[in-house]
């Protein structure tokens, strides 16, 4: 990509990343949540990949690491559900509800939001990597 694209990407990619994290963390107070924030974080990584090429990104974050993160997200969500099971029933809200309209409130909902965010980010980014890294070798039949 050209110099303009690279410079703009350097200036904006981390802003997009921070916006996604903000949306995930405030998911129980303002519009947003794990789904939207996860997609936005994935978009910031895709932004970097499109501007700098896949090698620059894969040096920092390998494909295997993305798969590990995805499993971590799924297992964290399941673990939250199982902790709720220990407190009464599956997906019970086992933490105290706390003061409403605070960042630390709503029991286990922010934790679930973070787990879903990691899961959606890693899943979509690995789908994108699989679609980009493909080398089509035609006519091998």
């Amino acid at each position, binding site marked *: 990509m050209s110099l303009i694209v690279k410079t703009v990407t350097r200036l904006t990619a981390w802003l997009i990343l921070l916006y996604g994290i903000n949306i995930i963390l405030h998911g129980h107070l*303002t*519009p947003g*949540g794990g*789904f939207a924030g996860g*997609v936005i974080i994935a978009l910031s990584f895709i932004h970097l990949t499109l501007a700098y090429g896949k090698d620059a990104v894969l040096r920092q974050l390998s494909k295997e690491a993305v798969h590990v993160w995805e499993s971590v997200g799924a297992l964290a969500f399941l673990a939250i559900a199982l902790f709720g099971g220990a407190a009464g029933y599956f997906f019970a809200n086992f933490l105290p509800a706390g003061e*409403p*309209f605070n960042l630390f409130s709503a029991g286990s909902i922010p934790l679930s939001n973070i787990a879903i965010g990691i899961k*959606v980010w890693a*899943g*979509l980014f690995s*789908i994108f990597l*699989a*679609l980009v890294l*493909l080398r*089509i*070798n*035609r*006519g091998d*039949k």
Partner: protein
Amino acid sequence: MIYFLCLVLLCVGIYGVLRKRNIIRMILGLIIAEHAINLLFVLIGYRLNGRAPILSPDGPILQMVDPLPQALVLTAIVIGLATTALLVALAMRLHGKYGTYDVARIRELKG
């Protein structure tokens, strides 16, 4: 009447799936039908002059729209993206093998 326009959009999508020869265009038709269904859900939950279903510390908010269809559609949007990605992967694989997106030609070449 607004439901009817939404169903027209659904019909456009179904027509694309049924009558196009290009696989990418079929995928586009599927996405359009999906958008129409999502929109129909949210339309049914809308309350006239309602407010977004987010409470505020200033006081109670009356007249909220229905949060249930919104929650269902929020899940459906992400699933739709995942399905699209899988379909695109299959289409690209077909293009790698046959060199075309044309359904009719793929059928001819298969034998």
